[in-house]
């Protein structure tokens, strides 16, 4: 399949957005949904064709002379020319991670489209409003995300970054009549906008000093794959300019990472993601688990060679990632809302990816990249891929459960295994995959991440292994609490059951993918420099991590499989810690305090008072004075034409008098 078909991959969702958005109102709900699904199906088939052609085909410029898999620019017209050198282009570029992302996005999006037909058909028993709107926004999101991953330059990435942000905002706030959803969507938008401000700053600084937005000048070498030499020369264009003791490119890259951290919900910008769960669950699966939230990871991976050279920025990513992974995992252990728990799990897993990217360059060597020549990079991308699949699976399962019991709280669930066997098995597969039990997908990618971490330092490795153990624990805690614990008490008029086939089929498909995705030849395809990465299973690390995962699962089994007193006892014992974790370590309260007490009260209020009192007051005074004066002299305009003529005549006579006096004198 010609690689230029990528244009169609991107154009179809855009078309579907306009079509469903504009014509959807005139169409029936069923028709709209199925049109959306069909459009997405075509997109998916094309995307698979393009991606597989890119990975396994030859002869379309995929392979450089030295065998590296290089970036193929399908088309790249100029869009905005600032100067001769500084040009913003809008293009489509395929490279290994872009092709991989095409597969991820279209797969998950396809599953979500299909799933939504069942899920969105009713909402807590009422027919869902805005069905057409929902599908239009899904298409818009898919378009934006696809445009983001095939971007040829930083500016284009930024534009699509904003667009995914907007679609995320629209979909989180889909139930716009619920205040919680409205607040959540605003929160998500504002937090990511704040981060995007830094992103834009970073882009501007970087492009100012390197003179380009284009990736092929920033990171891609002569063979079209990531090249440290090119990155080095791009950075040296900055001429060693420094700011506050760090090089400007390090600042720029840090700012860009902050932008990515906002989207990828890294601490401390993670606060929007748990609230984003107010949106429909399929949306959470698509946007807030599988695709949009990994945009930050994708961004860092895209600029990977630059980060390798600017070690300072890389260290920041490493620390932030490792901390976030632990922090989110700790919170996930105590959440009672299953979607929130899954959201924190997502944060933790994305942090895994970030850390993996960051440890990938531990020794900073220009030629040699630590951890087996960029193992961390490959592991991160691989984990991105597998995580997208099993996390989407978990979210869709959660959606099915919520749909069945009409509640997010796991206290309303319990013992659903008998009622929803398919969902239960799918969820179990997802849990095993995320916990890292072979041969499920998560095992392979997470194992490589851990190997990369250990090779940076034993401390990092132990830390991340611990988080991996916590992952296994909290996932199985959720699983057991939903499906076992005690017998289900039926509250609603009909017992919960497996959902219609439109919702079950995606679970089965994603479940199968989660089982086999680990066997994808990631090492061959996703090497940072486009070349095959020769890896082998490190049995020491793999064995340990499986062992730790099993311990986590065992602990969860002991505590949560059958109803018992142990969790409550532990909760009472460590009530302070439990409360803190349950309240997300008071991060939201901290933000609330900073924004409301410090910024709003301390800064904005005086400014507002100045603005309203003095500036507005001055102009109000002017307006009032003008109004009064006008009211006072309004009688001059009495509507009597004859008095006007008198006035006119007096004026004319006065003029004549003046002229006469002048002439006589």
């Amino acid at each position, binding site marked *: 399949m010609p690689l230029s078909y990528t244009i169609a991959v991107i154009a179809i969702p855009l078309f579907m957005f306009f079509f469903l958005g504009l014509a959807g109102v005139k169409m029936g709900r069923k028709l709209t949904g199925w049109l959306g699904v069909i459009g997405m199906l075509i997109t998916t088939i094309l995307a698979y064709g393009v991606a597989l052609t890119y990975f396994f085909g030859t002869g379309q410029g995929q392979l450089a002379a030295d065998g590296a898999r290089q970036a193929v620019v399908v088309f790249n017209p100029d869009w905005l020319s600032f100067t001769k050198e500084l040009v913003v282009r809008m293009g489509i570029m395929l490279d290994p991670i872009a092709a991989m992302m095409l597969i991820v996005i279209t797969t998950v999006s396809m599953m979500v489209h299909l799933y939504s037909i069942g899920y969105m058909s009713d909402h807590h028993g009422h027919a869902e409003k805005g069905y057409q709107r929902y599908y239009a926004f899904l298409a818009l999101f898919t378009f934006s995300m696809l445009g983001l991953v095939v971007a040829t330059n930083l500016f284009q990435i930024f534009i699509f970054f904003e667009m995914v942000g907007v679609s995320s905002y629209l979909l989180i706030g889909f139930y716009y009549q619920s205040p919680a959803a409205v607040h959540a969507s605003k929160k998500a938008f504002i937090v990511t906008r704040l981060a995007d401000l830094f992103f834009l700053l970073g882009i501007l600084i970087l492009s100012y000093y390197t003179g380009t937005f284009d990736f092929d000048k920033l990171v891609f070498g002569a063979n079209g794959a990531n090249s440290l030499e090119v990155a080095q020369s791009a950075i040296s264009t900055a001429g060693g300019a420094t700011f506050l003791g760090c090089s400007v490119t390090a600042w720029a890259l840090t700012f860009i990472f902050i932008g990515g951290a906002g989207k990828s919900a890294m601490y401390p910008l993670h606060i929007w993601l748990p609230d984003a769960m107010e949106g429909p669950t399929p949306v959470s699966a698509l946007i807030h688990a599988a695709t949009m939230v990994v945009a930050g990871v994708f961004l860092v991976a895209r600029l990977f060679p630059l980060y390798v050279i600017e070690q300072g920025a890389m260290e920041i990513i490493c620390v932030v990632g490792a901390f976030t992974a632990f922090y989110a995992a700790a919170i996930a252990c105590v959440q009672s809302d299953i979607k929130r728990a899954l959201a924190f799990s997502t944060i933790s897993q994305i942090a895994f990816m970030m850390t993996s990217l960051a440890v990938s360059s531990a020794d900073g060597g220009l030629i040699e990249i630590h951890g087996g020549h960029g193992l961390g990079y490959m592991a991160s991308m691989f984990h991105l891929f597998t995580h997208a699949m099993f996390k989407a699976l978990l979210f869709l399962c959660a959606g099915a459960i919520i749909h069945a019991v009409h509640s997010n709280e796991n206290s309303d669930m319990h013992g659903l295994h008998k009622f929803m066997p398919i969902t239960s098995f799918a969820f179990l597969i997802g849990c095993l995959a995320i916990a890292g039990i072979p041969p499920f997908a998560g095992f392979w990618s997470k194992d490589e991440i851990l190997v990369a971490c250990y090779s940076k330092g034993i401390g990092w490795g132990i830390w991340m292994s611990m988080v991996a153990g916590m992952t296994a624990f909290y996932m199985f805690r959720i699983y057991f609490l939903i499906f076992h614990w005690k017998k289900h008490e039926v509250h609603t008029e009909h017992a919960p059951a497996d959902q219609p086939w439109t919702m079950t089929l995606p679970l089965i498909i994603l479940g199968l993918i989660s089982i086999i995705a680990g066997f994808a030849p990631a090492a061959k395809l996703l090497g940072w420099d486009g070349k095959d990465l020769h890896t082998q299973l490190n049995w020491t690390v793999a064995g340990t991590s499986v062992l730790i995962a099993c311990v986590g699962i065992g602990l969860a089994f002991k505590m949560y499989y059958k109803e018992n007193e142990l969790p409550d006892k532990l909760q009472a014992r460590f009530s302070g810690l439990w409360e803190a974790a349950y309240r997300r370590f008071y991060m939201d309260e901290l933000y609330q305090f900073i924004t409301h007490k410090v910024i709003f009260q301390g800064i904005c209020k005086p400014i507002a008072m100045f603005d309203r009192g003095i500036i507005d007051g001055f102009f109000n005074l002017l307006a009032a004075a003008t109004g009064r004066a006008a009211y006072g002299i309004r009688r001059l305009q009495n*509507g009597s*034409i*004859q008095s006007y*003529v008198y006035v006119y005549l007096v004026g004319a006579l006065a003029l004549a008098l003046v002229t006469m006096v002048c002439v006589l004198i």
Partner: protein
Amino acid sequence: MNLTLLMYLVPSLIMFGCGVYGFLTRKNMIAIMISLELMLNSVDLNFVVFNRYLFPGQMDGMFFTLFAIAIAAAETAVALAIIINVFRVARKVDINELIKLKF
């Protein structure tokens, strides 16, 4: 005795003065229009005599008068149409009593 320029300007001036007086004093809108016509006519007359006395070889003043007559005709027609319409609504044409649109 010669007929000088001045001898034509004086009746014209008096005509204009009468127009002003009528415009200022009359209450009837049609009478006001008639006064207006007087003033216009005096101006037309001025155009013609100035043209004739000062630039006998040209006829721009005459053309101005011609156009002024055309425009006066148009203006009068519209004005009278408005007046009649006002009369239809208010049953009067007295300018001092039509104060509904004031302020």
